[in-house]
């Protein structure tokens, strides 16, 4: 089984533009950032949320709080994947009650990660609203989950994987579509 790159979905520059656009959308659709907070899903969701917070601060001076969510304890596929994933810990140091939360992740696929994220958030309190922001929506939903803020929607097949590579986590900046071939 080999992995081959099929095509690039976003270049570094396109990632930057997309995130700036998403940052503006979030603020516009959030009645001025009152009670707003971003929650990044480990790992790349955290990097993206961090960048969105900085972008928002850049054009609006608003300081939106940010939390980190580790969904490992909430996954539904644990009994089939063998060794348990290491826990890295959730770090949300503000109360979740009555907050307007935007969950940030790199790719939306089956929706199971977001389902787990919601379970994790509801264990901490009762947010007023939860919306989802993703860089790529690749379709193939298995649960009724939708993203409000979408960087780019792409058509993919089952064997393909969308790889989001960010400077902070991967040492390069691009989004590619790869395929697994026998």
């Amino acid at each position, binding site marked *: 089984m080999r992995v081959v790159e099929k095509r690039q979905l976003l270049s570094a520059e396109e990632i930057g533009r997309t995130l700036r656009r998403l940052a503006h959308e979030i603020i516009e659709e959030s009645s001025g950032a009152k009670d707003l907070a971003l929650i990044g899903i480990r790992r790349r969701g955290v990097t993206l949320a961090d960048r969105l917070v900085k972008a928002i601060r850049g054009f609006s001076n608003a300081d939106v709080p940010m939390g980190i969510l580790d969904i490992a304890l*909430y996954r539904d596929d644990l009994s089939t994947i063998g060794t*348990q994933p290491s826990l890295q810990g959730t770090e949300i140091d503000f109360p979740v009650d009555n907050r307007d939360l935007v969950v940030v992740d790199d790719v939306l696929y089956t929706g199971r990660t977001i389902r787990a994220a919601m379970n994790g958030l509801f264990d901490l309190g009762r947010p007023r609203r939860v919306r989802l922001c993703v860089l790529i929506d690749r379709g193939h939903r298995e649960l009724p989950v939708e993203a409000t803020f979408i960087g780019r929607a792409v058509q993919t097949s089952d064997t393909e994987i969308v790889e989001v590579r960010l400077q902070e986590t991967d040492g390069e900046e691009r989004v590619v579509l790869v395929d697994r071939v026998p």
Partner: protein
Amino acid sequence: MQHLSHLLGIEDLTHEQISFILDQAKPFQEFQRYPLKKLATLRGKTVAVAFFEASTRTRISFTTAAARLGADTMALQAESSSLKKGESLIDTVRTLEAMRPDGIVIRHSSSGAPEFVAKRLEIPVLNAGDGTHEHPTQALLDALTIRDRKGRIEDWNVTILGDILHSRVARSNIYLLSKFGAKITLCGPAMWVPRELEDLAPNLRRTTRTEEALEGADVVLVLRVQTERIHEPALAAEEYILGYQLTAKRLRLARPDALVLHPGPMIRGLEIDSAVADGPQSGVLEQVTNGLAVRMALLYHLIGSAPVDAPHPAKDRSNASD
């Protein structure tokens, strides 16, 4: 991480494995503060909690840990008199096999009993204390408490005070702390601190004089006085207090920020005086919370992992690469 299939003792764990377990306990320390302390991570799993020796605290700690992870527990409690003829561990093992739990937590008065069970069952076995051999989760929660209170586990002067010969808590702590560079002093009445203890780890010294043992200590681990050991003449309480009680005055010989730990249950006024037990240097309450966190982390990893022959899904539906 090196995959652990059982937790039988600290002696065979590596430095990396111990550090990993302590790191994994951190999110569970946080978790104890959540309003809703119930996960679905181990939903559908059953943990057999088999305690063949009386214990309330450790048993409740493990049962709560399992329940908070969403697992069910099956409680097997034999009579505390383990001299009962006829009831053999092998019969309990067979009963367990028939009920198919996903893991077993076992405390037993015979050293080697968890290993006996692990050899015969295909499920993970966690040692909650075997005879005078090991009590690994105690040492792990003690290490976590040391790390939180003092910033690190490495290289402290540790004094262990009491009946070392008959203490599994002492042995597990000796193994763990010496893997992290501790200089350990063992102190107690002469018949309970025999020479052979020095072979357990490097950098161990023994003394029968409490004042000498406490000088310069960074961590003081006070053991409880075991009254249930048979075949042993007991030491009168007044004798023990005179020579070995951890009083406030004796504690002043240690470093000013020395941490005092006790595996519990404490007999106030015997091995430790109340002022010390309740004082600012005492870590006993954190030990309890940390016990829950460590046990949740161990159950999460040992019981949560799939059995070796679990079927894998035909398609990999995960896009997650981390």
